[in-house]
């Protein structure tokens, strides 16, 4: 059970949050211009990394805010949290 440091509320139990999958997948501005393959790339393709992964979390039973998390999936350590719109910490690239 993770302890997640919500950037708005502070450290809370995982049960207050819901996970939103991979982060930094931007919705295409002009979906109608995309081919089936390009749209499928956005819609379906997700990484499943063993190691450092960037993910979205929602403090759904708290402030309801979405934010980003850097997590090492091999040991579940959360290395960093940052708000939506902020750039991912470069040292984890």
């Amino acid at each position, binding site marked *: 059970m993770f302890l997640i440091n919500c950037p708005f509320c502070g450290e809370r139990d995982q049960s207050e949050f819901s996970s939103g999958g991979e982060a930094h997948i931007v*919705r*295409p501005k002009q979906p109608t211009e995309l081919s089936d393959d390009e*749209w499928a790339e956005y819609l379906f393709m997700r990484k499943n990394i063993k190691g450092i992964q960037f993910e979205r979390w929602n403090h759904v039973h708290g402030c309801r805010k979405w934010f980003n998390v850097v997590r090492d999936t091999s040991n*579940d350590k959360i290395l960093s949290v940052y708000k939506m719109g902020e750039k991912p910490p470069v040292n984890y690239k």
Partner: protein
Amino acid sequence: MPNYRIHKTEYIDETKRVSFKYDGKTYFGYEGDTLASALLANGIHLVGRSFKYHRPRGIVSCGAEEPNAICQIGSKKDLTEPNVRATELELYEGLEASSQNCWPNVKFDIGGINNFISPLIPAGFYYKTFMWPKSFWKKVYEPLIRLSAGLGKSPTEPDPDIYDHKYVHYDVLVIGGGVSGIIAAKMAAKNNLKTLLVDDKKILGGSTIYQNNESIKIDDKLSSEWLKNEIQEIKKLSKLTIKTRTSIAAYHGYNFLLAKENLTDHLPEEKKENKIRQRLWKIRAKKVVIATGSIERPLVFNNNDRPGILLSNSINKYLDYYGVTCGENIILFTNNDSAYETSISLHKKGIKNIIVDLRKSASSELIKQAESLGVKIYFNHVVTNTFGYRKINSLEIMKLSEDGNTTVGNKIRLSCDCLGMSGGWTPMVHMHTQSGGKLDFRDEDQVFLPKENSEDQISVGSCNGDFDLENIIDKTVNKINKFLDIDNQDYQDTNIICSKENDKRNIWLLPNKIPLGKTKCFIDFQNDSTAKDIKLALKEGFRSIEHVKRYTTTGMATDQGKLSNMHALGIIADTAGVKMGTLGTTTFRPPFTPLTFGTLVGRNVGKFFEVVRKTSMHEWHVENNAEFENVGQWKRPWYYPKNHENMHDAVQRESKAARDSAGILDASTLGKIDIQGTDASEFLNRVYTNAWSKLAIGKCRYGLMLNEDGMVYDDGVTTRISENHYLMTTTTGGAANVLSKLEDYLQTEWPELDVYLTSVTDHYSTASICGPNSKKILNKLFPNLDLSDENFPHMSFKEDKLENINCRIMRISFTGELSYEINIESKYGNSLWKMCIEAGKEFNLTPYGTETMHLLRAEKGFIIVGQDTDGTMTPSDLQMDWIVSKKKYDFIGKRSLYRSDTVREDRKQLVGLLTDDPKEILEEGAQIVSDVKSKPIDMLGHVTSSYFSPNLNKSIALAVVRSGKTMKGQKLIIPMENKNINVTVSDTIFLDKENKRLNA
């Protein structure tokens, strides 16, 4: 009756005699006893039959590792408990326990015949035998296995006990109250860290607390005396909480641990009442100190499972802690020094004993002490066989060869009534590995040890492989200082004297002249797997330890292999010729010892099982006989039976009334989201498939919401209350998810939009009145409101007051009838409802529930998201292309609507079905085919909604069918268990296609 209690100890209160029943017979023990110690005091070793061969089995240990002495407690249907370890169960007045897994009784057990046919039931027996014929499985094999494989009986009635959950936060959690745990807890708490110390026993002190050997001293005191002092001291520390009878069940990530505290299991029946039985502690600790100690290993030799064969150290504890001797003529069989402590203790109490030691020779303080007491020691010898059916009465030993691979010389037969075995010690690394820690292997004494200690978790004491007291204390102090970053000097000058073990010799499978195939060298006592089974598994090609475990079931019993896993690994390594360290271990999974379901569930039983949401009209529904349906957490009226009507009759009556005159529905549970902001219109444009910018203030519009994959996600009517203010309704079940999804897009994709979302589902109650007379009822309630079609047309919204209370009234319809929804602040919901009912009396206003609502909307072909859709339906599949805007540049899911897969013409599509026999009602979920003769039968789709319509006087159904759009008028078949039902594909709208009734 024999009495094996031979001396007084401070842990047994001889003034408090306790009577208890075991297998129907009454015995006596004392307060402080466990069931096991009391049984042993009465000379009872035989406590059960083994799982597979039904061999007589006795008490082996004195703790959580016990494989044999598991019993059924109590006989009441609601309070009986199986698989309780007698070694952990504290004795109380009136305790009733019985042995398990034997029939008709423990002394004469019919299953014992398995022992003689054992060559026929080798490892993997079940897999090999019960495979064919297939038809035998259900009727023959399964009942047979279930009958003979009983591990106790579960209660058959609800558990009346109270259980509790508690969340706690600590700076430091110390698991285990032995010497290292006590030291760690004291150091932490004295340094002002909020500390919790838990131990599964009744008192702290581990195995040191009854230590009384003169060669082991701390500051010139017996180690037990020194430790008692320490315990007195830590009890004074204000920062330290001590929880005894509390065992850690699971160690999860981020130092989140579950512990079970036993509160009343040791109390007599009358004192248990109305008290919490067990409490589950949910612990978050910044740092965790694991001091769980180690458990003694058995030795693997022929017939090592007879009653009267125990772990050597357990014999010592029964003697020095409980004052009970396990025999009068004891042999100790060992490969290490710890059995000598037992020997010396026994000798002091006048119990004759002999030591058989695997080692060629050994020297240490303890051995010198035993020798000087005149204890006979057979070095370099091995026990090769034991005798005695219900209890051991003698054994044979032989000399070991130089390499230890065989025996040499002649057998020596020794008589005895008890055998203590010690194969060394296994550190309890369960907690370390559960937390994600890795293990190292130490060849010297063949133990797995915690590899690295992380910054928030550390192992100390014998669970870290430190076995002698000096080592334990010194290392614990050093490690804890470093771990907690403190500088505690309390133990700087502590003077520790202890015997040091210098000689080791480990042989996993002891040699024997008898071929292995003819021996019974047990590894797992509870699951009856032997060394032979392990070797057979290897011979048959199993290599991975995880596979061997499952094939032989070694370590898979309720004791989870606490005594057997190491031996299984050792024998696999030896047989396969690999190093044990490279083999790895099986996974240690929680819980460490079994938990009751009650503990896990806590207070969430009965009416607290789940959160229940009730509308403010709920009481009225109850008073008026409603049957309820669960929709999400909501309780919704399902139908209102009158004069003992069944559901069908009630629904027919309700739906007819709604179409003929007027009906009223509690629609409060629909999700309501308040949307405000200058970009609210643009936001709705992006989330719904249809256009919203041009919706006039005071008007309502139905909207369909898709997922980005183009599939229908939710629907509902949204009302424009003012320029930048909308009220969205969602399905009852989808409310929370829709809000979450909308927030997601707002916060992450379109943060530039000025839009605010607020859930107002609970803020408003809604009464929905429909039917040709609804306008007249509305007129009575709101006499000043102009209800004319010109002023208040379909799909529009007005505000008015009901006795000075604001109401939002929408003229919208989910039934196809003229219909109004009145929204009022929830606290007035019940009053509103009653006023509607009162006003509607003269028009036979009939309350109807969800079932009638479903029927009425089905007559009109309105979909229910989640019933007629399942996450694979596009708007086009639902024949709802009309609601998808062609002009809008983008909305959620738009691009997916022309993916090659979504434009396929042979997708499943929503159609209506009419049965050839109008009285025949289809079953929802029934499969639809066109041809029942060709096999395999081609499944075309399934029925999603089905009702008998009283208004049309025939059966109607909605279904999804492959290429359904093109099949209108076509005949299809619904094959049922005993007949085929013929149907014709129809339009989805069955009633009032012209929508005349909306303005009736």
